[in-house]
């Protein structure tokens, strides 16, 4: 394989993998922080138990999120050095700020939260997990600002002398219109993901045989509040996604034409839910189409014109000249891989909708103190945590693959971005090593997660004596409240 292919596979594998853990961290840290705040305010032991139980699951998840994040920062320089040279002046700033504002906040306060149960007053301790959550949001903001710049570069000028993009308006980079809608879209989907995880875990605990009434009541709270969060954030994800589609139609029309596999301009344009047959525009055997929906999604008007791939290709060729990456991409001519964009777009939306529907069903099935016993609702609840994880992954694959052949839209192709000095052997070694290690870690993580999910929340009596000291720590021989 050519170094470019290897570098792309590595980026895809490490990024999709990393982003399985990120949204759970963002969403679950917010939920655990809310539980702990409820505990501090009401002193109802139920909330402390939920804080500890989901806190432990959060930490199992965060650990992998953190260590796989290091790879993300390093690989820009390692595999994409020409990209780094070209964009560093613009793209490096949000990355550096992310480290300074977000990573320090997250990791320092996470350490305080994990070990600080008996060292900090309850309110300060709860504030620590909020600080972690805030850190995750900062982190999301800056890294998405960097990504949005790749989708829609603004606030810079190309300097022919240095041959690179140079920032001239930091505000424009930070408040890029793509960023302003991507950030809420991603963060809301992270809340959806975290809440779906909580619903799945708590539902299983709630309905398992032999659960005490007290435990049932506690898990029911988690199930129902979680399901509400799934529904509300799901609405928000749909709403922001809709705006994002319109902005994308404007800034990257090819991506949205590729999302439908629309080869020729139509007005109005329909949206197919499902297509059998080839997506190359020559013949489709079977399709379910909703008339006018694509026009509405792309332009906001049911009769709006949506420009097709063939017309866009001509437009792009006029604007950018013949495709500098055409030799590499067999599709060539500024066209992304259509079946991939077509299906990932549908799977993202479809799985998101199914997740929301599942949460709605669970909410209905648990109304008025009911504990559902049916298989259907149980399996739905068990599947729920996985739906947003898949939807998130498909969303990222769609938006990144839909931008191809560009790394930075309109400025630099992916083929131009790769490190010229790194051999296929080195990159292959890195790809194999990281992929194997990630696979092993996935097995370890899932098994550990299942172990701790099965254990369930500890009884309140084991947790309560942990109450933090109000005065100074006089008992020097007291064992640590938490130790690795």
């Amino acid at each position, binding site marked *: 394989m050519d170094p470019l292919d290897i570098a792309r596979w590595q980026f895809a594998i490490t990024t999709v993998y990393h982003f399985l853990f990120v949204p759970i961290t963002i969403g679950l840290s917010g939920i655990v922080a809310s539980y702990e705040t409820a505990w501090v305010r009401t002193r109802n032991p139920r909330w402390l138990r939920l804080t500890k139980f989901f806190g432990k699951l959060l930490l199992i998840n965060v*650990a992998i999120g953190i260590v796989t994040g290091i790879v993300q920062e390093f690989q820009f320089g390692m595999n994409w050095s020409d990209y780094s040279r070209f964009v560093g002046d613009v793209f*490096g700033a949000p990355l550096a700020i992310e480290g300074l*504002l977000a990573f320090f906040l997250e990791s*320092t306060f996470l*350490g305080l939260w994990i070990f600080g149960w008996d060292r*900090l007053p309850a309110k300060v301790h709860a504030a620590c997990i909020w600080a972690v959550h805030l850190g995750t949001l900062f982190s999301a903001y800056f890294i998405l600002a960097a990504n949005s710049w790749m989708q829609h570069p603004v606030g810079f000028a190309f300097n022919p002398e240095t041959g690179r993009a140079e920032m001239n308006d*930091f505000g424009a980079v930070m408040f890029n219109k793509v960023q302003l809608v991507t950030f809420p879209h991603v963060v809301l989907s992270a809340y959806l993901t975290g809440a779906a995880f909580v619903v799945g875990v708590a539902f299983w605990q709630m309905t398992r045989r032999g659960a005490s009434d007290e435990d049932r009541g506690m898990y029911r709270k988690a199930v129902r509040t979680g399901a509400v969060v799934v529904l509300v954030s799901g609405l928000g994800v749909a709403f922001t996604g809709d705006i994002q589609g319109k902005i994308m139609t404007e800034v990257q029309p090819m991506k949205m034409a590729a999302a439908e596999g629309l080869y020729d301009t139509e007005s109005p344009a329909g949206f197919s839910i499902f297509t059998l047959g080839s997506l190359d525009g020559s013949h489709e055997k079977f399709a379910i189409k909703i008339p006018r929906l694509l026009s509405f999604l792309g332009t906001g008007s049911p009769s709006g014109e949506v420009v097709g791939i063939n017309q866009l290709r001509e437009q792009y060729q006029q604007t950018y000249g013949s495709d500098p990456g055409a030799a590499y991409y067999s599709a060539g001519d500024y066209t992304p891989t259509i079946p991939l964009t077509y299906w990932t777009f549908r799977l993202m939306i479809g799985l998101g909708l199914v997740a929301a529907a599942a949460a709605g069903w669970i909410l209905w099935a648990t109304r008025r103190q009911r504990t559902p016993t049916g298989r259907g609702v149980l399996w739905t609840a068990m599947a729920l945590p996985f739906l947003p994880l898949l939807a998130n992954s498909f969303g990222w694959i769609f938006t990144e693959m839909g931008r191809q052949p560009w790394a930075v839209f309109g400025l630099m192709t992916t083929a131009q971005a790769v490190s010229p000095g790194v051999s296929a052997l080195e990159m292959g070694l890195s790809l194999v090593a990281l992929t194997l290690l990630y696979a092993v870690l996935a097995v*370890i993580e899932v098994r550990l997660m299942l172990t701790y999910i099965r254990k369930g929340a500890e009884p309140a009596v084991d947790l309560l004596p942990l109450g933090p000291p109000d005065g100074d720590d006089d008992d020097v021989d007291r064992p*640590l409240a938490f130790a690795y």
Partner: protein
Amino acid sequence: MELTTVWFVLIAVLWIGYFTLEGFDFGVGMLLPILGTTEKERRVLINTIGPVWDGNEVWLLVAGGATFAAFPEWYATLFSGFYLPLLLILLALIVRGLAFEYRAKRDDDKWRANWDLAIIFGSYVPAILWGVAFANILRGVPIDADMEYAGGFFNLLNPYALLGGTMTTLLFLAHGAMFVSLKTDGPIRREARMLAARIGLVAAAVTVVFLGWTQISTGSVGSAVAFALAAVALLGGLAAVGNGREGWGFLGTFVAIALGVAGLFLALFPDVMPTTLSSGLGLTTTNAAATHYTLRIMTVVAVIFTPLVLVYQGWTYWVFRKRIAVHHIPDLPTPVGNR
């Protein structure tokens, strides 16, 4: 001062933060099999750094990010050039970070032994390779006219660089032992104190040779002063710990590492990655830098947020200031069983 110089200094500061802080937690990891003969002792060691190691590691991430932003060419050449060492460091940091969090999550000797190996490997590899990498930066590597690294992996394994790797490893071992002596109580504390003094002496010898070699080949007046003070701090720290003054001992290795790194950066300036090829183009603070505009924005952000980070990170060390001894470790790792 030119903004490019300001950022050279800031990046030096970030690396100083990284090596002085993660230096001791690497040290603790490397000492795990030596100081931790029983399971409870190993847990004492791990718990001395448990709340802080991750915050320490962020200094590396910020150093990397700041280099990307302030000196994109340096970031690109360095990271793509030192490919395999960095890959090894990544693998090491991944398993090491997970080990701290996962080790106590299962009550199973085999499980813990595997994670102990991860901690030991994950601490030695970066401790050695960061030294190798920095020595190579100072020594110069083949960089061609396009600012691309043109040497292979084995080019990085020259005697000077290997000495650099030995030095960082020994210094971090001594620094870690100082930290353990400061943070623990009981037999492990006494042992750590002895070990700090012994390893410290060897570390001091290697450090003097390496810094002397550096001073002769690329040194400046500034680096000479920093190196001399680093040596004084190191010997002072060793003398202190020999007299049972653990706090002063730790301060000694801390300051020695800080001044040593500062001296290396002073010896490097104004280069950031010199080339050994006559036809090549070495990287300097000017030709590798971002634009004035970007540097100005970054300066504002750094000036506001770095002090804040120092305050809350410092507070963490205050919160967890208590010494830990074997009897502080609760019986079961965390309240868990096997399944």
